[in-house]
Each structure stands twice: as structure tokens, then as C-alpha cells.
């Protein structure tokens, strides 16, 4: 099998590094890709489940732009909706009708949510959710799960991080995932001070196995929050519409007060949404929160088209099925070559790890070998499936993985 090289990616990165801090920054930085030499840095074009880098190498994409691509790149129905709206107006002096239509559609779609408020990125709405919780309760403190990711605003980061001062995180408390006892104790310790509890529907940090909620965990958390007057906030930015069209809280059988969506909501068009219960609509209206492009109509039209299409084809079930086929196949191949591959999380966004080596070095080498052959696997983050991934993609991926395991076995 041909292995890829990336001379153009390197050339453009060197150019980028001269005028951009880090060359490529944030979660797209090549730094967590181990080794970076196995990975492309710049994309040229993308269609369906595949992308082509600037060296002309084609990849089956299992990162899906880190989540936003859910129906396949350049999905015609979505692009057409966005294009049509943009032809009329995108960024105008007032919102367009799609804002109302999208809010109405989401209220009908998402379980227990009575209103929607739109922004651009996941972090916009997780931060807004905190502000709404504080406005509604008059309290300062927020509890979040240790290792949980809610964006990059100062409150989401560690107090030891560059650019963060102690005051940024002085009202943020952390608790272990799935540990109801610890959460209850923390709430009692700060009785009457907790405005909100924010968590992802299941625990999907980077570099470690993902964890589903323990049986009864979410129902107990919901009960605790109701009793103590704490706003229950679900960060569904990553999982949203990959588990259940009604929201991931419906999938796990509980009812939050606020839900944050982004990524899969518009198949790559820039928009996020905070949804909330009726009781929080007035407090939400009192928080002044806005942005220059938050009313752009084209992404709203794209979101409407994306959600309708996902619902029509039962996107979450489709992705779960494809993801299971992929993961089962990879586990069997690992076993055939004498390795142990562990799959955690849900099949539509699985986290995989070769458990033969706790340092992750073996897993990093395998992901690199797969990527060099055209299956774009990262070793530090959960992967994403889309409805565009076909059976042919899965079979091709398994062939690549088979060869990568063989190469690894030979090297050991």
C-alpha cells in the first residue's frame, strides 16, 4: 500500500509559522498529532466522507473537522439552502426569517426545551449558559467535571494556564465524573452558592478512555439539582445529534434546564445554540450577550436543512451502525495481529486505544501508520462518524488498519 508524504504541507506550515503564532493554533495544531510527520497540515478540498490535502493525498476522514461534518462534506441539500439564503441576505441589518424558523424547529425537536438562542461557537453558548444560570439563581459558583471540555474561555481553563488569573476560576469547582457522592458532598459544602452544574452527556476527555454515565447517575443528578435550585447545564456541543435527534439527554433519559449545541448542528456552517426550559427564558433575556455574526442567516438556513435531513434519515442511528461496524472490525483485526484494541464512548464518536502499552506510544504509532495510508486517525481524541461514511469506506479503512497492524507487529 502506498504511504503518503507531505512536502507541500510542510512548506506551507513553514510559511504559516512566520506570520501566525504556532503556525496552526488551537485544536487544529499539529502538536498533538504524534508524530506530526505522519499527518497532513492543510486541506485542499473535501467531499462526502473524504478530504484531499494540498499534496494530493486522499483520506477517509474520521475526525469530521472535529465534529461539525455530520452529513458529509459539501452535502448538496445543506449547501443549496445556505447558498439560496446568502443570495438574498446573509449578514444584514436585522435577522432573517430563518432565525425564527430554526428556533421553532429546534423547540419542536429537542426534548423539554422551550427556546433557542444562537451564537457561533460552542464556547459562546457554554459561557452564556453559565451567565443565565447565575442570572437565574443570583449565585456565583459553577461545578464542572474534572477533565471535561467546555471551550477555551478563561473559566473553562486551569488556573495554572497561560493568560489565566486565579479570579478567572475562583468560582469554578470541579468534581469527578460519575461520582454522585462527591457531587452531593460538594453541593452540601457550598449549599446555596451553586448556580449551575455543567457536564457533557457522557465523559469524553482526550487521551483517556471515555466513560458513559453509570446507571441512574443522571436521574440522581437531576433530582439533586432540582432540590438544591441548581441549573443543570448539558454541554451537547460534541455529542449533539450524533446520539439522538431529541438531544443526548433524551438518549440517557433525563431532563436538563439548559442544553448547548454546536458542531453537528449545521454540517460545518458556523452556528451554535443554547436551548433552555421555559422557566429560564426571562433570566436569559436579561443577560446581554451578542456578536457581530450571530444573526447571519445562511448558517441558520444550513442548520435547518441539516437537522431536517438528519431527522429524515435517522442520522444518529445511521452513524451508530456504521461506527459499530468500523470498531468491531478494528478490534477483530487487532486481535488477529496479537494486539488489544479497546473501544469506549459511543460508536458514532468512539475513542480507541491500544491497551498493550499504557504510555500510548504504540497506539500513536498505529494511528500514524493508518493515516499515512489514508485513514485519518488521531490518537488523542475521540473520532467522529458521519452519515456519509459508506460500507466501501469501512472496508477500505479495515484494509488499511490490517496493514498498519502488520507493520507495527514487524517493528516490535
Amino acid at each position, binding site marked *: 500500500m502506498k504511504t503518503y508524504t507531505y512536502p507541500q504541507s510542510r512548506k506551507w*506550515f513553514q510559511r504559516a509559522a512566520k506570520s501566525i503564532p504556532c503556525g496552526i*493554533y488551537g485544536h487544529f495544531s499539529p502538536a498533538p498529532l504524534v*508524530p*506530526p*510527520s505522519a499527518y497532513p*497540515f492543510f486541506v485542499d478540498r473535501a467531499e462526502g466522507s473524504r478530504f484531499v490535502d494540498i499534496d494530493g493525498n486522499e483520506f477517509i476522514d474520521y475526525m469530521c473537522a472535529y465534529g461539525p461534518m455530520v452529513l458529509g462534506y459539501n452535502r448538496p441539500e445543506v449547501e443549496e439552502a445556505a447558498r439560496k439564503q446568502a443570495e438574498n441576505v446573509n449578514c444584514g441589518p436585522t435577522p432573517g426569517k430563518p432565525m425564527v424558523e430554526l428556533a421553532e424547529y429546534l423547540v419542536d425537536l429537542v426534548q423539554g426545551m422551550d427556546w433557542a438562542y444562537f451564537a457561533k461557537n460552542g464556547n459562546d453558548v457554554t459561557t452564556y449558559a453559565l451567565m443565565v444560570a447565575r442570572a437565574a439563581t443570583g449565585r456565583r459558583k459553577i461545578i464542572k467535571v474534572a477533565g471535561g471540555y467546555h471551550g477555551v474561555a478563561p473559566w473553562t481553563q486551569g*488556573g*495554572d494556564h*497561560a493568560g489565566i488569573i486565579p479570579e478567572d476560576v475562583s468560582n469554578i469547582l470541579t468534581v469527578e465524573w460519575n461520582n454522585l457522592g462527591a457531587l452531593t458532598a460538594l453541593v452540601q459544602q457550598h449549599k446555596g452558592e451553586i448556580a449551575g452544574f455543567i457536564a457533557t452527556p457522557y465523559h469524553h476527555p482526550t487521551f483517556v478512555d471515555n466513560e458513559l454515565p453509570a446507571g441512574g447517575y443522571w436521574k440522581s443528578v437531576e433530582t439533586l439539582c432540582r432540590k438544591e435550585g441548581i441549573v443543570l447545564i448539558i454541554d451537547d456541543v460534541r455529542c449533539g445529534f450524533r446520539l439522538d435527534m431529541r438531544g443526548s439527554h433524551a438518549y440517557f433519559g433525563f431532563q436538563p434546564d439548559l442544553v448547548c449545541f454546536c458542531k453537528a448542528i449545521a454540517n460545518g456552517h458556523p452556528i451554535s445554540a443554547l436551548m433552555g426550559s421555559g422557566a429560564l427564558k426571562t433570566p436569559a433575556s436579561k443577560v446581554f450577550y451578542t456578536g457581530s455574526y450571530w444573526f447571519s442567516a445562511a448558517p441558520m438556513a444550513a442548520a435547518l436543512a441539516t437537522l431536517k435531513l438528519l431527522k429524515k434519515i435517522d442520522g444518529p442511528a445511521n452513524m451508530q451502525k456504521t461506527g459499530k461496524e468500523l470498531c468491531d472490525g478494528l478490534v477483530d483485526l487487532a486481535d488477529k495481529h496479537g494486539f488489544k484494541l479497546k473501544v469506549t464512548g459511543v460508536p458514532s464518536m468512539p475513542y480507541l486505544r491500544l491497551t498493550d502499552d499504557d*504510555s500510548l506510544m504504540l497506539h500513536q504509532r498505529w494511528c500514524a501508520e493508518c493515516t499515512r495510508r489514508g485513514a485519518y486517525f488521531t490518537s488523542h481524541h475521540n473520532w467522529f462518524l458521519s452519515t456519509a461514511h459508506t460500507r466501501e469506506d469501512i472496508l477500505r479503512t479495515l484494509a488499511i488498519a490490517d496493514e498498519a497492524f502488520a507493520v507495527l507487529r514487524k517493528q516490535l
Partner: protein
Amino acid sequence: MVVLALAVRWRRARTAGVFHFVTVGRTMSDQLVKAYLNLHAVMLNLEDLVEHDPVAQSICRNWKVSIQFAVVHGPSVRIVFEKGRCRVTPGFRLNSDILLLFASGAHLNKVMENKGMPILTRGLTRLPFLLKEFPKLTKRMEEVLKPAAGAVEDPAFLALHTRLLLQTVGFAAAALSLRDPKSMLAASKIRDGIVALKVLPSGPGVLLESRKGTLTASRGMSPRPTACLEFRDVTTAQRFLSGTIDPFTAIALGEVEIRGQTPMLDSLSLILDRVEHYLK
């Protein structure tokens, strides 16, 4: 006690809402942390300097003396010169030939910057050695650690400078994980295991073993580290450790290689930033 005092100061400052880093950077407690770094990281370099630098070897070849540095309610270190070798051991031993006492961390730091004198408590007869001979070696160490412009263009000097720089940073990180509040927070998030810092292809290297949120440093390499931070060559290591290159860019370009449990390196990098804060 020192750690506790720092933690109390941190909490009080936060409660009062007056905390900012510049102020804390000038407090006495900060000086005490710096004193630990000076004795447990910077002074440790004397061992390697004497072992690897012909200039240093020529200075101390015939020395046979033990010197105890001790800060009141603070760090102490014992330096022994014998048979052309130097051994630096953290801790206090009563039977040293010379005992240099420092009233405080700030006092020690001033002496390290050639702005003060220690209190000679034992070894009065060795005063000429202390005034004339020993400073030759510490001056040489300063030359190597803080090279003059152009000095690093000499490959041998660059290799020596980088060896000492790597060691200073590694041992300072370990000292900070016990004493500097920001570093303690970062270290508390590092899982148990071994982080290997190494200059390719064959060293030098420093190992940092993380256990229950504190770091222990040692020289050398590990066959099975948990995470690796490797520098393509001596020049890259020098630029990385002295903070003159963007680490993310260097990693992307393969000048610096990371692998394994790289979240350990993320937290470690926050501690390395604190080394620069104290030692500039």
C-alpha cells in the same frame, strides 16, 4: 512549612482580591522558592561542570574541601570537592569544613547575584579559599549558564551550556513542584510515570519521575518512559530551553519530538514557564 506558608499566602491574597503575579514575584516567599532553585538546581550544575568542562577541572583539580550552604528555615546543600571531582548533595551535614549561613532566601539570592556576602560560621582559616579560589569556579559556572554573545557558536561550549541548562530546568521543575503554588497545581495534574527529556541522538538527558503530584529529577535516560520530550540537536534544545522558539511550531516541524502520555508534557510546560519566572 514553606509550602504551607505559601498556600496560606495564596489563599489570603485571593480572598482579599488583591492578588497579582508581579506583587507575589517580589514577596519574601518567592525569594525562598528562588533560594531552593538556586541551591537544588543551579548549584547542582557544579558536579557536571567539573566533570565535563576542562576549564572547571583545571580550577578545582587539587581541592579537598567540603562546603555547607544553609539558609535559615530554608534549603541547604553540601558541596564536596575531592580528587578532581565534585559532589553536590541537598541537605545539612555538621562536619563540613566550611559552613556558610544565609539569614534568608533573599540573602542567598543576593549572594548568588554577587550582591552580598554569606555569614561564615565555620572554616575561618579557609577564608582565602572562599574569597579567591571558589569564586573562580562559580564565575565559570555563570559563564557557561549565561553565555556571552557569540559564545554558543563554539560547538563544545554549546554542548556544555545545553547540558547545564537542561539539568537546571529539570531539577528546578522538580523543586517547583513542591514549593511554587502554580507549579504545585500543574504538578497535581501530572499522572504517575516518567517524563524523559533528552537531546538527540544520545543525550544528555534528564528524567522527571511523577508520583502523587510531585516531581523528582535525576540525570540520565529511561528505556521505558511514559512520555518523551526530545530535541533534534543541541542547538534546538538550547533554543527551546531558553524560551527563544515557539514550542508548538518546533514540534510541528519535528525539531522537538513529543510522544507518549503528552498531557504530562502539557502540565510540565507550565512548570517550565515558572522556572523562567524565578531564574530569568
